[in-house]
């Protein structure tokens, strides 16, 4: 009987727990009673996080496609082939003909290593990861306004705030141990404002619930700012001493009277005024947001408005305040921190900056590094589909289900001369690969994850990987070595972290010895630095906070006579993304066994669709069958679908239109129609 302290592999809340194992096999999970986030509890995914690990579907040997089918191969064969074929593609089509897709599920060390492999060994900046699909708008929008695209405050600040404003986040389902903390705060007197047109659980505890139209966040937030300025509720001193460009913001929001904002959002003007007063009237107010804000073709503008709202009221840089983007994946914060991004090295250092390039080149022992930013993941899929990108190395992602417009994603992947997938199961994407490399899962390796509050925490090995599966770190380093690079040999994961610390200022003081028991929130620049739970306290990371005015753009695809309903997509509480792990966890799979579509009772009556009836959902890009769930969770005219299910895949319908700045797809709005099945 052994207990191993580690980090939950699901959401960015970053609960730690103990994996209980007996004779090399996981038999359960025990909560940590001292962890500052989980505090003796977990959500249902955490309690069941052991259950998929020994599943018989786990990949146990490398696979190579021969005569059209994937066949077992040795590591020697597979690695040799990966290196040979990658080199071949580069020779034929140039250095940037390959794309590396890293993973927010993998550790910091592995993300760092894959980005080093791409840049130092294969000399391309074509590396990105799934943050592109979730919070790239945050990284862009907050970098511009604050200088740092991360949650500004600590989760524990929830206990000491007066007002919480949740917009575009179904917190109790997607960050359950943060959502529940918000509920507790509300019971102790904190006021709650929820803006989300789904009737999520938090809405049922809210002082005010705004069900604004999909894609109308800019009008809502600008309307609130207009009221705040007009009613003299702005924090003049904060604006004067800590920010710049206020005049431009004030001018841009002036036309957004409550009436105009009401007309665009579908809300009552009085509610917009009430929301503005509630938020601005608080001594300390926190904003939480997530995909409802970011996954739009104007996602960056949404983020800019949120940043402006917080600065306008001085709700930044103090306990109980802040702009708090809830990062979805267990390590999506870390994936970004580690520079698994096409334009940035670890620590958000620009590849276009000669000094940074020289530093990394010197540290990595290579003569030079490429200077032009690489392709974002979503643009790489477009390039592949257009025949302009020829190889992809995908570590732990399943774009066939997670990317918008599945038809397009399939075409892109099938177009490739070489697709290498490194994963723990044969995902829908891996099934298309030429070479599949079996990886260890979170319970079978050492490393760190960085949670949504920037807390870098230790992931520990509890059991051995199945068969010949190896950790991502081992695999990446083996590839580097075979490609003739000798700068990637490490005794263990902690040595990789030591290297990260030397090159990444805000991880500068982080080493494994310091991370016991519950991690350190970055920035932690030096070995004696205690970490930084709250950012931007004396000054913003960029100096002065920058107000960035925006103009209103509608979602690209609007409902019309042919496609009269708005489809918005998301997740359910019981599943994680493409279901690779949760659909192989008996209890979770039983809870949500298949695809469904939430539909308002009014629409259901109009279309004479009954609860649980099978129906067809059709968009301009494709159609799928699913089951109707008639519920007032959604408003009339809007339907919701989770994207977990390969059968009834919501992303066959979604629109591959991207935010021009962050390249995030507009997962949250497209137009569909419903048809009864014959």
């Amino acid at each position, binding site marked *: 009987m052994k207990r191993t302290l580690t980090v939950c592999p699901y959401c960015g809340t970053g609960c730690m727990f103990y994996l209980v194992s007996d004779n090399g096999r996981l038999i359960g999970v*025990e909560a940590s009673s001292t962890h500052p986030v989980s505090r003796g509890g977990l959500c249902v995914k955490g309690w069941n996080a052991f259950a998929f690990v020994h599943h018989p579907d786990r990949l146990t040997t490398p696979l190579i496609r021969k005569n059209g089918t994937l066949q077992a191969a040795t590591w020697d064969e597979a690695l040799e082939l990966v290196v040979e074929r990658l080199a071949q593609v580069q020779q034929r089509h140039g250095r940037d003909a390959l794309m590396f897709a890293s993973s927010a599920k993998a550790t910091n060390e592995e993300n760092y290593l894959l980005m080093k492999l791409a840049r130092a060994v294969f000399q391309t900046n074509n590396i990105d990861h799934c943050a592109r699909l979730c919070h790239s708008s945050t990284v862009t929008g907050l970098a511009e306004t604050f200088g740092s695209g991360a949650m500004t405050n600590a989760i524990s600040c929830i206990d000491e705030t007066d007002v919480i404003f949740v917009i575009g986040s179904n917190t109790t389902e997607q960050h359950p141990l943060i959502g529940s903390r918000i509920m507790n705060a509300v019971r102790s007197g904190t006021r709650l404002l929820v803006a989300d047109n789904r009737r999520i659980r938090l809405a049922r505890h809210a002082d005010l619930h705004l069900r604004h139209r999909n894609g109308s966040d800019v009008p809502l937030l600008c309307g609130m700012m207009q009221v705040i300025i007009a009613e003299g509720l702005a924090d003049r001193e904060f604006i004067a001493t800590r920010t710049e460009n206020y005049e431009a913001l004030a001018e841009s929001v002036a036309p957004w009277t409550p009436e105009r904002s009401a007309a665009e959002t579908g809300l009552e003007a009085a509610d917009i005024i009430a929301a503005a007063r509630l938020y601005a009237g608080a001594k300390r107010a926190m904003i939480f947001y997530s995909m409802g804000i970011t996954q739009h073709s104007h996602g960056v503008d949404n983020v800019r408005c949120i940043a402006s709202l917080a600065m306008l009221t001085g709700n930044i840089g103090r306990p109980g305040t802040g702009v708090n983007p809830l990062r979805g994946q267990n390590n999506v914060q870390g994936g970004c921190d580690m520079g698994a991004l096409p334009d940035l090295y670890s620590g958000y250092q620009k590849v276009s900056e000669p000094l940074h390039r020289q530093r990394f080149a010197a540290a990595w022992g290579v003569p030079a590094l490429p200077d032009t930013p690489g392709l974002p993941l979503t643009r790489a899929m477009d390039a592949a589909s257009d025949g302009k990108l020829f190889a992809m190395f995908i570590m732990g992602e399943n774009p066939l289900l997670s990317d918008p417009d599945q038809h397009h994603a399939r075409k892109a992947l099938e177009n490739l001369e070489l697709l290498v997938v490194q994963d723990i199961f044969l995902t829908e994407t891996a099934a298309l690969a030429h070479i599949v490399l079996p990886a260890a899962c979170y319970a079978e390796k050492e490393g760190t994850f960085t949670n949504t509050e920037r807390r870098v925490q230790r992931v520990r090995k509890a059991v051995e990987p199945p068969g010949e599966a190896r950790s991502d770190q081992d695999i990446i380093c083996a590839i580097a070595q075979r490609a003739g690079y000798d700068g990637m040999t490490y005794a263990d994961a902690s040595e990789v972290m030591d290297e990260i610390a030397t090159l990444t200022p805000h991880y500068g003081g982080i080493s494994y010895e310091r991370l016991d*028991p519950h991690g350190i929130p970055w920035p932690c620049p030096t070995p004696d630095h205690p970490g930084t739970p709250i950012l931007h306290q004396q000054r913003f990371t960029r100096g002065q906070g920058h107000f960035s005015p925006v103009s209103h753009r509608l979602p690209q695809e609007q409902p019309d006579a042919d496609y009269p309903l708005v489809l918005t997509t998301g997740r359910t509480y019981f599943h994680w993304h493409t279901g690779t792990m949760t659909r192989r966890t008996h209890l979770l799979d039983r809870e949500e066994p298949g695809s469904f579509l939430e539909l308002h009772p009014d629409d259901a009556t109009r279309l004479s669709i009954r609860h649980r009836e099978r129906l067809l959902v059709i968009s301009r890009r494709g159609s799928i069958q699913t089951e109707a769930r008639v519920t007032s969770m959604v408003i009339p005219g809007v339907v919701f679908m989770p994207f977990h299910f390969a059968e009834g895949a919501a992303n066959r319908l979604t629109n591959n239109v991207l935010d021009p700045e962050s390249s995030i797809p507009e997962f949250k709005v497209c137009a569909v129609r419903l048809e009864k099945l014959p």
Partner: protein
Amino acid sequence: MKSLTPLQLEHFLAHLAERYELRVPILLPDGTRTIGSPDDGPLALLGGAVPGKPTAAFFPQQETIFTAIHGRLSQAPPPPKPLFILGFTATDLECLRFIDRFFADGIRDDLYFRLRQGAVVAGISGYCGAKGTLLPPAAGNCDLELFLAGDTWLVIPYSGTGTELAKELPNAATPEEAELFKCSIPTVPDGGETLLQAASALLCADRVPDSFWEELGERCIACTGCNLACPTCTCFGVQDWRSSTGVERSRTWDSCQLDGFMREASGHNPLGSEALRSRRRIHHKLAADPRKWGEISCFRCGRCDAACPTGIGMMAVAADLVARFG
């Protein structure tokens, strides 16, 4: 009754490890306590009940029922050595007594008794609760009990095995020590017990309106922590893993707070809302079990209250119920 210095206790445990698979309260790396193997952390006898489900020792979260590989059926053999488990508090022992009855009733649960049969259970009590407070003695329900009095552990045997083991110990307890132990045995129900009885009476008399459960349901995020922490929760689901070589059937803790727990194949669900499920959780322990088993099946260990992220564990709900409808 015998007595042991802390050092003697450690020797006693080391001696037991030759014959038994030992499980004792230990300290894990982040300060969480659990009942585990002494190899996995230093002994941590002080601090009261461990936060995890203590009955997991006999009923783990997941266990294999059988495997059938190439048509050959096999089941896990009984452990090579019987278990010796130290660390159950008086309330934990009540819980254990209750689930012993449950698993023995009707078709005896062979998986449970594979580990339970022959196991020696040692209770823990005395001035070793949180911050040195008194953990009341169990005065039974176990093979032997260790009671901390000052610097001394008193050893009080109950079963035949307990008596045999205690016989090996050299020092008898002094009459004062024996008296201190006796005086600590509670004679009247404690506050928690009275509260649960009052809540149970309200439920049995149907005095709690549906609106109460609806409010409660709004607060349940379906984490399942209440069930997974509870020593008397015994529900499990059975699942098969199929591979090219055969089948593995296992069972895993289930939770009545989940929609799928009672959902019928038709899709109909008699417990189809959080309100109904929250009602069931409380009702089962305070109203249904008393009818079936003659006793309330919550022994007030407080684990569900500690595990629940939104504050709707048993004791919190009972207190709310009694305050509003009592």
